[in-house]
Protein backbone atom coordinates (compact mmCIF):
# COMPACT_ATOMS: atom_id res chain seq x y z
CA UNK A 1 0.00 0.00 0.00
CA UNK A 2 2.69 2.47 1.07
CA UNK A 3 4.76 1.44 -1.94
CA UNK A 4 1.87 2.23 -4.24
CA UNK A 5 1.35 5.68 -2.67
CA UNK A 6 5.07 6.51 -2.93
CA UNK A 7 5.31 5.34 -6.54
CA UNK A 8 2.11 7.30 -7.32
CA UNK A 9 3.65 10.44 -5.87
CA UNK A 10 6.83 9.94 -7.88
CA UNK A 11 4.88 9.44 -11.10
CA UNK A 12 2.77 12.55 -10.53
CA UNK A 13 5.92 14.51 -9.63
CA UNK A 14 7.58 13.51 -12.89
CA UNK A 15 4.35 14.28 -14.74
CA UNK A 16 4.20 17.78 -13.31
CA UNK A 17 7.85 18.43 -14.26
CA UNK A 18 7.11 17.23 -17.79
CA UNK A 19 3.98 19.34 -17.88
CA UNK A 20 5.92 22.45 -16.86
CA UNK A 21 8.66 21.82 -19.41
CA UNK A 22 6.11 21.40 -22.19
CA UNK A 23 4.23 24.48 -20.99
CA UNK A 24 7.34 26.70 -20.90
CA UNK A 25 8.61 25.41 -24.25
CA UNK A 26 5.23 26.09 -25.78
CA UNK A 27 5.20 29.59 -24.32
CA UNK A 28 8.72 30.28 -25.57
CA UNK A 29 7.66 29.19 -29.05
CA UNK A 30 4.56 31.35 -28.83
CA UNK A 31 6.63 34.35 -27.71
CA UNK A 32 9.09 33.79 -30.57
CA UNK A 33 6.27 33.68 -33.09
CA UNK A 34 4.87 36.88 -31.61
CA UNK A 35 8.32 38.50 -31.87
CA UNK A 36 8.52 37.58 -35.57
CA UNK A 37 4.99 38.91 -36.07
CA UNK A 38 6.00 42.23 -34.51
CA UNK A 39 9.02 42.45 -36.84
CA UNK A 40 6.88 41.63 -39.88
CA UNK A 41 4.34 44.28 -38.95
CA UNK A 42 6.86 47.02 -38.30
CA UNK A 43 6.22 48.62 -41.68
CA UNK A 44 3.63 51.03 -40.29
CA UNK A 45 5.99 52.17 -37.52
CA UNK A 46 8.77 52.86 -39.97
CA UNK A 47 6.52 54.62 -42.48
CA UNK A 48 4.81 56.71 -39.81
CA UNK A 49 7.79 57.38 -37.64
CA UNK A 50 5.91 59.92 -35.52
CA UNK A 51 4.19 56.93 -33.84
CA UNK A 52 7.62 55.75 -32.68
CA UNK A 53 8.71 59.26 -31.69
CA UNK A 54 5.70 59.56 -29.41
CA UNK A 55 6.64 56.31 -27.68
CA UNK A 56 10.30 57.38 -27.52
CA UNK A 57 9.14 60.13 -25.21
CA UNK A 58 7.34 57.69 -22.88
CA UNK A 59 9.98 54.96 -22.84
CA UNK A 60 13.17 56.95 -23.35
CA UNK A 61 12.76 60.50 -22.16
CA UNK A 62 10.73 59.60 -19.08
CA UNK A 63 13.37 57.02 -18.08
CA UNK A 64 16.09 59.68 -18.18
CA UNK A 65 15.76 60.85 -14.61
CA UNK A 66 16.27 57.42 -13.03
CA UNK A 67 19.12 56.64 -15.46
CA UNK A 68 20.92 59.95 -14.85
CA UNK A 69 20.62 59.82 -11.06
CA UNK A 70 21.54 56.11 -10.80
CA UNK A 71 24.47 56.55 -13.19
CA UNK A 72 25.81 59.42 -11.15
CA UNK A 73 25.62 57.50 -7.88
CA UNK A 74 27.03 54.26 -9.29
CA UNK A 75 29.99 56.26 -10.66
CA UNK A 76 30.47 58.00 -7.32
CA UNK A 77 30.50 54.71 -5.44
CA UNK A 78 32.88 53.15 -7.99
CA UNK A 79 35.18 56.14 -7.55
CA UNK A 80 35.16 55.80 -3.76
CA UNK A 81 35.65 52.03 -3.73
CA UNK A 82 38.23 52.16 -6.51
CA UNK A 83 40.24 54.88 -4.81
CA UNK A 84 40.11 53.04 -1.50
CA UNK A 85 41.61 49.87 -3.02
CA UNK A 86 43.99 51.45 -5.52
CA UNK A 87 45.62 53.83 -3.08
CA UNK A 88 46.86 50.82 -1.09
CA UNK A 89 49.07 50.06 -4.09
CA UNK A 90 49.88 53.67 -4.78
CA UNK A 91 48.06 53.61 -8.08
CA UNK A 92 45.11 55.88 -7.28
CA UNK A 93 45.67 57.69 -10.56
CA UNK A 94 44.27 54.59 -12.32
CA UNK A 95 40.88 55.19 -10.71
CA UNK A 96 39.63 56.88 -13.89
CA UNK A 97 40.41 53.74 -15.87
CA UNK A 98 38.67 51.54 -13.33
CA UNK A 99 35.52 53.66 -13.31
CA UNK A 100 35.36 53.99 -17.09
CA UNK A 101 36.04 50.35 -17.91
CA UNK A 102 33.61 49.00 -15.31
CA UNK A 103 30.90 51.30 -16.61
CA UNK A 104 31.43 51.07 -20.33
CA UNK A 105 31.95 47.30 -20.44
CA UNK A 106 29.50 46.05 -17.81
CA UNK A 107 27.68 48.31 -15.42
CA UNK A 108 26.47 50.85 -17.98
CA UNK A 109 24.61 48.43 -20.24
CA UNK A 110 23.56 46.00 -17.48
CA UNK A 111 22.38 48.39 -14.77
CA UNK A 112 20.78 50.72 -17.31
CA UNK A 113 18.95 47.74 -18.80
CA UNK A 114 17.79 46.55 -15.36
CA UNK A 115 16.49 50.04 -14.58
CA UNK A 116 14.95 50.29 -18.04
CA UNK A 117 13.13 46.98 -17.49
CA UNK A 118 11.65 48.18 -14.20
CA UNK A 119 10.82 51.70 -15.37
CA UNK A 120 9.85 51.40 -19.04
CA UNK A 121 9.33 47.64 -19.49
CA UNK A 122 6.79 47.42 -16.72
CA UNK A 123 5.00 50.52 -18.03
CA UNK A 124 4.78 49.06 -21.55
CA UNK A 125 3.37 45.77 -20.23
CA UNK A 126 0.85 47.49 -17.99
CA UNK A 127 -0.29 49.85 -20.74
CA UNK A 128 -0.77 47.16 -23.40
CA UNK A 129 -2.32 44.80 -20.83
CA UNK A 130 -4.83 47.44 -19.73
CA UNK A 131 -5.63 48.35 -23.33
CA UNK A 132 -6.45 44.67 -23.83
CA UNK A 133 -8.47 44.43 -20.61
CA UNK A 134 -10.54 47.50 -21.51
CA UNK A 135 -11.19 46.13 -25.02
CA UNK A 136 -9.22 48.94 -26.70
CA UNK A 137 -7.22 46.42 -28.72
CA UNK A 138 -10.40 44.59 -29.75
CA UNK A 139 -11.98 47.92 -30.70
CA UNK A 140 -8.96 48.73 -32.83
CA UNK A 141 -9.24 45.37 -34.58
CA UNK A 142 -12.94 46.08 -35.23
CA UNK A 143 -11.89 49.36 -36.85
CA UNK A 144 -9.75 47.33 -39.25
CA UNK A 145 -6.53 48.59 -37.65
CA UNK A 146 -4.06 45.90 -36.62
CA UNK A 147 -3.16 46.42 -32.93
CA UNK A 148 0.20 44.67 -33.38
CA UNK A 149 1.18 47.15 -36.09
CA UNK A 150 -0.38 50.22 -34.44
CA UNK A 151 0.22 49.65 -30.71
CA UNK A 152 2.88 46.97 -30.22
CA UNK A 153 5.43 47.66 -32.97
CA UNK A 154 5.94 51.41 -32.23
CA UNK A 155 6.51 50.63 -28.55
CA UNK A 156 8.94 47.86 -29.43
CA UNK A 157 11.03 50.07 -31.73
CA UNK A 158 10.97 52.97 -29.29
CA UNK A 159 12.42 50.66 -26.61
CA UNK A 160 15.05 49.25 -28.96
CA UNK A 161 16.16 52.76 -29.96
CA UNK A 162 16.10 54.21 -26.42
CA UNK A 163 18.13 51.51 -24.69
CA UNK A 164 21.62 52.17 -26.21
CA UNK A 165 21.22 55.91 -25.61
CA UNK A 166 20.18 55.36 -22.02
CA UNK A 167 23.13 53.00 -21.42
CA UNK A 168 25.50 55.58 -22.94
CA UNK A 169 24.03 58.35 -20.78
CA UNK A 170 24.34 56.08 -17.74
CA UNK A 171 28.05 55.49 -18.44
CA UNK A 172 28.73 59.18 -19.07
CA UNK A 173 27.02 60.16 -15.84
CA UNK A 174 28.96 57.42 -14.02
CA UNK A 175 32.30 58.69 -15.32
CA UNK A 176 31.26 62.17 -14.24
CA UNK A 177 30.24 60.85 -10.80
CA UNK A 178 33.64 59.17 -10.41
CA UNK A 179 35.30 62.44 -11.41
CA UNK A 180 33.26 64.38 -8.85
CA UNK A 181 34.25 62.08 -5.99
CA UNK A 182 37.87 61.30 -6.82
CA UNK A 183 39.09 64.50 -8.46
CA UNK A 184 36.94 67.22 -6.88
CA UNK A 185 36.41 65.79 -3.36
CA UNK A 186 39.42 63.51 -2.78
CA UNK A 187 41.94 65.38 -4.92
CA UNK A 188 43.23 62.77 -7.38
CA UNK A 189 45.14 64.49 -10.18
CA UNK A 190 42.67 65.58 -12.86
CA UNK A 191 45.11 65.08 -15.72
CA UNK A 192 45.86 61.50 -14.82
CA UNK A 193 42.14 60.70 -14.22
CA UNK A 194 41.29 61.63 -17.80
CA UNK A 195 44.51 60.67 -19.60
CA UNK A 196 44.74 57.18 -18.07
CA UNK A 197 41.10 56.67 -18.94
CA UNK A 198 41.69 57.82 -22.49
CA UNK A 199 44.64 55.50 -23.05
CA UNK A 200 43.03 52.46 -21.42
CA UNK A 201 39.54 52.57 -22.94
CA UNK A 202 39.53 51.05 -26.40
CA UNK A 203 36.83 52.14 -28.80
CA UNK A 204 36.41 48.78 -30.52
CA UNK A 205 36.67 46.46 -27.51
CA UNK A 206 35.08 48.57 -24.82
CA UNK A 207 32.74 51.20 -26.18
CA UNK A 208 31.49 49.34 -29.24
CA UNK A 209 31.03 46.09 -27.29
CA UNK A 210 29.15 47.96 -24.57
CA UNK A 211 26.95 49.50 -27.25
CA UNK A 212 26.28 46.10 -28.82
CA UNK A 213 25.33 44.70 -25.41
CA UNK A 214 22.87 47.51 -24.77
CA UNK A 215 21.27 46.90 -28.18
CA UNK A 216 20.75 43.22 -27.31
CA UNK A 217 19.31 44.18 -23.92
CA UNK A 218 17.00 46.74 -25.55
CA UNK A 219 15.57 44.12 -27.93
CA UNK A 220 15.22 41.53 -25.13
CA UNK A 221 13.56 43.80 -22.57
CA UNK A 222 11.11 45.43 -24.97
CA UNK A 223 10.24 42.15 -26.69
CA UNK A 224 9.45 40.59 -23.29
CA UNK A 225 7.49 43.69 -22.21
CA UNK A 226 5.27 43.87 -25.30
CA UNK A 227 4.70 40.11 -25.34
CA UNK A 228 3.72 39.96 -21.66
CA UNK A 229 1.36 42.93 -22.15
CA UNK A 230 -0.27 41.49 -25.25
CA UNK A 231 -0.58 38.04 -23.69
CA UNK A 232 -1.83 39.25 -20.27
CA UNK A 233 -5.18 37.80 -19.14
CA UNK A 234 -7.64 40.72 -19.39
CA UNK A 235 -8.16 41.10 -15.64
CA UNK A 236 -6.59 43.16 -12.84
CA UNK A 237 -4.62 40.14 -11.56
CA UNK A 238 -3.65 39.21 -15.09
CA UNK A 239 -2.12 42.61 -15.82
CA UNK A 240 -0.34 42.83 -12.47
CA UNK A 241 1.05 39.31 -12.91
CA UNK A 242 2.26 40.16 -16.41
CA UNK A 243 3.98 43.33 -15.16
CA UNK A 244 5.83 41.35 -12.51
CA UNK A 245 6.81 38.70 -15.05
CA UNK A 246 8.21 41.39 -17.34
CA UNK A 247 10.54 42.73 -14.66
CA UNK A 248 11.63 39.29 -13.38
CA UNK A 249 12.10 37.66 -16.80
CA UNK A 250 13.83 40.73 -18.27
CA UNK A 251 16.26 40.93 -15.36
CA UNK A 252 17.19 37.25 -15.63
CA UNK A 253 17.51 37.45 -19.41
CA UNK A 254 19.71 40.58 -19.13
CA UNK A 255 22.10 38.86 -16.73
CA UNK A 256 22.17 35.63 -18.74
CA UNK A 257 22.68 37.46 -22.03
CA UNK A 258 25.38 39.61 -20.45
CA UNK A 259 27.41 36.52 -19.53
CA UNK A 260 27.04 34.98 -22.98
CA UNK A 261 27.88 38.24 -24.79
CA UNK A 262 30.87 38.94 -22.55
CA UNK A 263 32.19 35.42 -23.13
CA UNK A 264 32.01 35.94 -26.89
CA UNK A 265 33.30 39.51 -26.92
CA UNK A 266 36.36 39.07 -24.77
CA UNK A 267 37.27 35.65 -26.14
CA UNK A 268 41.03 35.56 -26.77
CA UNK A 269 41.54 39.10 -25.47
CA UNK A 270 44.13 39.22 -22.76
Amino acid sequence: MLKRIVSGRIVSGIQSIGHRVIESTWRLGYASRFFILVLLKSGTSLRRFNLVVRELYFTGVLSLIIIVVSGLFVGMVLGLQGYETLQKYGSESAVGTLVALSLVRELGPVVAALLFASRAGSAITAEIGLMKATEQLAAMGMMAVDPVARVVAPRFWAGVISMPFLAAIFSVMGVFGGYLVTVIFIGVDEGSYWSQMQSAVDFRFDILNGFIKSCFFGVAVTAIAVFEGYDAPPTAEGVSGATTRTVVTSSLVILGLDFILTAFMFRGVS
Partner: protein
Amino acid sequence: MSMTPETLVEVHDLNFSYDRRPILKGVHMTMQRGQVVAIMGGSGSGKTTLLRLISGAIKPTSGYVRFAGEVVHELNRDALFKLRRKMGMLFQFGALFTDLSVFDNVAFQMREHTNLPESMIRDLVLMKLHAVGLRGAHHLMPNALSGGMARRVALARSIALDPMLIMYDEPFTGLDPISLSVIGNLIRRLSDALGMTSIVVTHDVQESLKIVDYVYFIADGVIAAQGTPQEVRQSVAPFVHQFVHGEEDGPVPFHYPAQSYSRDLDLEDSIA
Protein backbone atom coordinates in the same frame (compact mmCIF):
# COMPACT_ATOMS: atom_id res chain seq x y z
CA MET B 1 -33.56 31.61 -46.01
CA SER B 2 -32.94 33.55 -49.18
CA MET B 3 -31.01 36.78 -49.56
CA THR B 4 -33.29 39.52 -50.76
CA PRO B 5 -31.61 42.67 -52.09
CA GLU B 6 -32.60 44.39 -48.86
CA THR B 7 -30.88 41.84 -46.61
CA LEU B 8 -27.59 43.08 -45.13
CA VAL B 9 -26.80 40.32 -42.64
CA GLU B 10 -27.81 36.70 -43.02
CA VAL B 11 -26.99 34.21 -40.31
CA HIS B 12 -27.47 30.68 -41.64
CA ASP B 13 -27.57 27.54 -39.49
CA LEU B 14 -24.76 28.93 -37.36
CA ASN B 15 -23.05 26.60 -34.88
CA PHE B 16 -20.23 27.50 -32.61
CA SER B 17 -18.55 25.41 -29.93
CA TYR B 18 -15.92 26.43 -27.45
CA ASP B 19 -13.82 23.58 -26.05
CA ARG B 20 -16.44 21.16 -27.45
CA ARG B 21 -19.12 22.96 -25.44
CA PRO B 22 -21.80 24.15 -27.87
CA ILE B 23 -22.49 27.89 -27.48
CA LEU B 24 -24.68 28.43 -30.54
CA LYS B 25 -26.78 25.65 -32.06
CA GLY B 26 -28.22 26.21 -35.54
CA VAL B 27 -29.06 29.91 -35.37
CA HIS B 28 -30.89 31.53 -38.30
CA MET B 29 -31.39 35.30 -38.56
CA THR B 30 -31.83 37.96 -41.21
CA MET B 31 -31.34 41.66 -40.79
CA GLN B 32 -32.56 44.15 -43.40
CA ARG B 33 -30.90 47.39 -44.34
CA GLY B 34 -31.89 50.20 -42.00
CA GLN B 35 -33.43 47.83 -39.46
CA VAL B 36 -32.74 48.02 -35.72
CA VAL B 37 -32.64 44.48 -34.32
CA ALA B 38 -32.33 43.50 -30.68
CA ILE B 39 -30.76 40.26 -29.56
CA MET B 40 -31.82 39.41 -26.03
CA GLY B 41 -31.07 36.59 -23.69
CA GLY B 42 -29.68 35.82 -20.28
CA SER B 43 -26.02 36.08 -19.40
CA GLY B 44 -23.90 33.46 -21.12
CA SER B 45 -26.58 32.66 -23.71
CA GLY B 46 -24.21 33.33 -26.63
CA LYS B 47 -25.25 36.88 -27.60
CA THR B 48 -21.78 38.41 -27.58
CA THR B 49 -20.41 35.30 -29.32
CA LEU B 50 -22.88 35.98 -32.10
CA LEU B 51 -21.53 39.53 -32.53
CA ARG B 52 -17.97 38.19 -32.63
CA LEU B 53 -19.02 35.72 -35.34
CA ILE B 54 -20.68 38.46 -37.40
CA SER B 55 -17.55 40.63 -37.16
CA GLY B 56 -15.31 37.69 -38.07
CA ALA B 57 -13.35 37.79 -34.81
CA ILE B 58 -14.02 34.05 -34.46
CA LYS B 59 -14.94 31.37 -37.01
CA PRO B 60 -18.10 29.25 -36.77
CA THR B 61 -17.94 25.49 -36.26
CA SER B 62 -20.47 25.19 -39.07
CA GLY B 63 -22.92 27.40 -40.93
CA TYR B 64 -22.10 30.92 -42.02
CA VAL B 65 -22.68 34.64 -41.63
CA ARG B 66 -23.15 36.54 -44.87
CA PHE B 67 -22.58 40.29 -44.67
CA ALA B 68 -23.20 42.53 -47.68
CA GLY B 69 -23.06 39.45 -49.92
CA GLU B 70 -19.82 38.02 -48.54
CA VAL B 71 -19.41 35.00 -46.28
CA VAL B 72 -17.46 36.47 -43.37
CA HIS B 73 -15.43 33.46 -42.21
CA GLU B 74 -14.23 32.61 -45.73
CA LEU B 75 -12.44 35.95 -46.13
CA ASN B 76 -8.70 36.25 -45.67
CA ARG B 77 -7.34 38.79 -43.22
CA ASP B 78 -7.02 41.66 -45.68
CA ALA B 79 -10.49 41.13 -47.10
CA LEU B 80 -11.90 40.85 -43.57
CA PHE B 81 -10.28 44.14 -42.55
CA LYS B 82 -11.71 45.73 -45.70
CA LEU B 83 -15.15 44.40 -44.80
CA ARG B 84 -14.83 45.70 -41.24
CA ARG B 85 -14.56 49.24 -42.53
CA LYS B 86 -18.27 48.83 -43.34
CA MET B 87 -19.00 47.77 -39.75
CA GLY B 88 -18.92 49.67 -36.51
CA MET B 89 -19.03 48.27 -33.02
CA LEU B 90 -19.83 49.90 -29.73
CA PHE B 91 -18.22 47.99 -26.88
CA GLN B 92 -19.89 47.60 -23.52
CA PHE B 93 -17.93 50.37 -21.79
CA GLY B 94 -16.99 52.32 -24.91
CA ALA B 95 -13.37 51.09 -25.16
CA LEU B 96 -12.14 54.59 -25.96
CA PHE B 97 -8.39 54.91 -26.49
CA THR B 98 -7.33 56.35 -23.17
CA ASP B 99 -4.18 57.98 -24.55
CA LEU B 100 -6.11 59.99 -27.16
CA SER B 101 -8.47 62.94 -26.68
CA VAL B 102 -12.16 62.73 -27.60
CA PHE B 103 -11.38 64.45 -30.90
CA ASP B 104 -8.51 62.09 -31.75
CA ASN B 105 -10.61 59.07 -30.81
CA VAL B 106 -13.30 60.03 -33.32
CA ALA B 107 -10.67 61.01 -35.91
CA PHE B 108 -8.77 57.71 -35.42
CA GLN B 109 -10.33 55.72 -38.26
CA MET B 110 -10.37 58.68 -40.65
CA ARG B 111 -6.64 59.17 -40.13
CA GLU B 112 -5.90 55.44 -40.40
CA HIS B 113 -7.99 54.65 -43.45
CA THR B 114 -8.35 57.82 -45.48
CA ASN B 115 -6.11 60.50 -46.92
CA LEU B 116 -8.50 63.31 -46.03
CA PRO B 117 -6.87 66.65 -45.25
CA GLU B 118 -6.77 67.57 -41.58
CA SER B 119 -9.21 70.48 -42.09
CA MET B 120 -11.84 68.11 -43.48
CA ILE B 121 -11.22 65.58 -40.71
CA ARG B 122 -11.80 68.38 -38.22
CA ASP B 123 -15.17 69.24 -39.78
CA LEU B 124 -16.24 65.59 -39.97
CA VAL B 125 -15.23 64.88 -36.37
CA LEU B 126 -17.13 67.91 -35.11
CA MET B 127 -20.18 66.82 -37.11
CA LYS B 128 -20.06 63.31 -35.64
CA LEU B 129 -19.60 64.71 -32.14
CA HIS B 130 -22.45 67.18 -32.72
CA ALA B 131 -24.69 64.24 -33.65
CA VAL B 132 -24.13 62.75 -30.19
CA GLY B 133 -24.31 66.14 -28.48
CA LEU B 134 -20.65 66.31 -27.42
CA ARG B 135 -19.11 68.80 -29.85
CA GLY B 136 -18.16 70.94 -26.87
CA ALA B 137 -16.26 68.08 -25.25
CA HIS B 138 -13.91 67.43 -28.17
CA HIS B 139 -10.81 68.58 -26.27
CA LEU B 140 -11.40 66.37 -23.19
CA MET B 141 -9.48 63.20 -22.40
CA PRO B 142 -11.55 60.01 -21.90
CA ASN B 143 -10.83 59.94 -18.15
CA ALA B 144 -12.70 63.25 -17.81
CA LEU B 145 -15.94 61.77 -19.23
CA SER B 146 -18.87 60.20 -17.41
CA GLY B 147 -19.93 56.66 -18.39
CA GLY B 148 -22.77 57.93 -20.57
CA MET B 149 -20.58 60.53 -22.27
CA ALA B 150 -17.85 57.97 -22.95
CA ARG B 151 -20.38 55.75 -24.65
CA ARG B 152 -21.67 58.63 -26.77
CA VAL B 153 -18.11 59.42 -27.86
CA ALA B 154 -17.60 55.74 -28.69
CA LEU B 155 -20.81 55.90 -30.70
CA ALA B 156 -19.50 58.92 -32.62
CA ARG B 157 -16.25 57.03 -33.21
CA SER B 158 -18.01 53.93 -34.52
CA ILE B 159 -20.03 55.95 -37.07
CA ALA B 160 -16.92 57.88 -38.17
CA LEU B 161 -16.72 56.21 -41.57
CA ASP B 162 -20.52 55.88 -42.03
CA PRO B 163 -20.71 52.08 -41.68
CA MET B 164 -23.53 49.96 -43.11
CA LEU B 165 -23.85 48.00 -39.89
CA ILE B 166 -23.29 48.95 -36.30
CA MET B 167 -23.24 46.44 -33.48
CA TYR B 168 -23.93 47.44 -29.90
CA ASP B 169 -22.70 45.17 -27.13
CA GLU B 170 -24.80 45.90 -24.04
CA PRO B 171 -25.03 49.65 -24.70
CA PHE B 172 -27.29 50.31 -21.70
CA THR B 173 -25.25 48.64 -18.96
CA GLY B 174 -24.55 50.82 -15.93
CA LEU B 175 -26.18 54.02 -17.22
CA ASP B 176 -28.43 56.41 -15.31
CA PRO B 177 -32.01 56.77 -16.68
CA ILE B 178 -31.23 59.98 -18.60
CA SER B 179 -28.09 58.63 -20.29
CA LEU B 180 -29.94 55.40 -20.96
CA SER B 181 -32.72 57.04 -22.89
CA VAL B 182 -30.24 59.37 -24.65
CA ILE B 183 -28.28 56.36 -25.92
CA GLY B 184 -31.48 54.54 -26.85
CA ASN B 185 -32.76 57.48 -28.88
CA LEU B 186 -29.38 58.00 -30.51
CA ILE B 187 -29.30 54.39 -31.68
CA ARG B 188 -32.67 54.82 -33.38
CA ARG B 189 -31.99 58.31 -34.74
CA LEU B 190 -28.57 57.50 -36.16
CA SER B 191 -29.88 54.34 -37.80
CA ASP B 192 -32.66 56.28 -39.48
CA ALA B 193 -30.50 59.24 -40.47
CA LEU B 194 -27.61 57.21 -41.87
CA GLY B 195 -29.65 54.24 -43.15
CA MET B 196 -27.56 51.87 -41.03
CA THR B 197 -28.57 48.44 -39.81
CA SER B 198 -28.17 48.19 -36.05
CA ILE B 199 -27.81 45.09 -33.91
CA VAL B 200 -28.34 45.74 -30.22
CA VAL B 201 -27.29 43.00 -27.82
CA THR B 202 -28.96 43.80 -24.53
CA HIS B 203 -30.65 42.71 -21.33
CA ASP B 204 -32.63 45.90 -21.13
CA VAL B 205 -36.04 44.83 -22.34
CA GLN B 206 -38.09 47.97 -21.74
CA GLU B 207 -35.60 50.42 -23.22
CA SER B 208 -34.83 48.32 -26.26
CA LEU B 209 -38.45 47.43 -27.07
CA LYS B 210 -39.08 51.18 -27.45
CA ILE B 211 -36.52 51.59 -30.23
CA VAL B 212 -36.14 48.33 -32.15
CA ASP B 213 -37.94 46.89 -35.18
CA TYR B 214 -37.40 43.21 -34.43
CA VAL B 215 -36.31 41.08 -31.49
CA TYR B 216 -34.56 37.71 -31.28
CA PHE B 217 -34.43 35.88 -27.96
CA ILE B 218 -31.53 33.51 -27.51
CA ALA B 219 -31.55 30.86 -24.81
CA ASP B 220 -29.15 27.93 -24.52
CA GLY B 221 -27.67 28.72 -27.92
CA VAL B 222 -30.91 28.56 -29.90
CA ILE B 223 -33.43 31.20 -30.89
CA ALA B 224 -36.15 30.71 -28.31
CA ALA B 225 -38.49 33.32 -29.76
CA GLN B 226 -38.58 36.18 -32.23
CA GLY B 227 -40.95 38.90 -33.38
CA THR B 228 -41.74 42.59 -33.49
CA PRO B 229 -41.83 44.47 -30.17
CA GLN B 230 -45.62 44.36 -30.33
CA GLU B 231 -45.66 40.57 -30.74
CA VAL B 232 -43.08 40.16 -28.01
CA ARG B 233 -45.06 42.20 -25.49
CA GLN B 234 -48.17 40.13 -26.15
CA SER B 235 -46.41 36.80 -26.30
CA VAL B 236 -47.64 34.08 -23.99
CA ALA B 237 -44.64 31.84 -24.65
CA PRO B 238 -43.35 31.06 -21.14
CA PHE B 239 -39.72 32.06 -21.78
CA VAL B 240 -40.59 35.36 -23.47
CA HIS B 241 -43.14 36.19 -20.81
CA GLN B 242 -40.63 35.53 -18.04
CA PHE B 243 -37.92 37.56 -19.73
CA VAL B 244 -40.04 40.54 -20.76
CA HIS B 245 -41.70 40.82 -17.39
CA GLY B 246 -38.60 39.94 -15.40
CA GLU B 247 -40.28 37.13 -13.48
CA GLU B 248 -38.15 35.37 -10.93
CA ASP B 249 -39.14 31.81 -11.76
CA GLY B 250 -40.22 30.13 -14.97
CA PRO B 251 -38.47 28.26 -17.77
CA VAL B 252 -35.29 29.89 -16.43
CA PRO B 253 -35.43 28.59 -12.85
CA PHE B 254 -34.55 30.64 -9.77
CA HIS B 255 -32.77 27.67 -8.18
CA TYR B 256 -29.58 26.20 -9.50
CA PRO B 257 -30.17 22.46 -10.01
CA ALA B 258 -29.75 20.64 -6.69
CA GLN B 259 -30.95 17.55 -4.91
CA SER B 260 -34.13 17.91 -2.90
CA TYR B 261 -34.09 20.57 -0.21
CA SER B 262 -35.21 18.22 2.55
CA ARG B 263 -32.49 15.73 1.70
CA ASP B 264 -29.86 18.51 1.72
CA LEU B 265 -30.95 19.48 5.23
CA ASP B 266 -30.94 15.81 6.35
CA LEU B 267 -34.66 15.99 7.10
CA GLU B 268 -35.74 12.93 5.11
CA ASP B 269 -33.94 10.42 7.33
CA SER B 270 -35.34 11.79 10.55
CA ILE B 271 -38.86 11.89 9.10
CA ALA B 272 -38.46 8.29 7.98
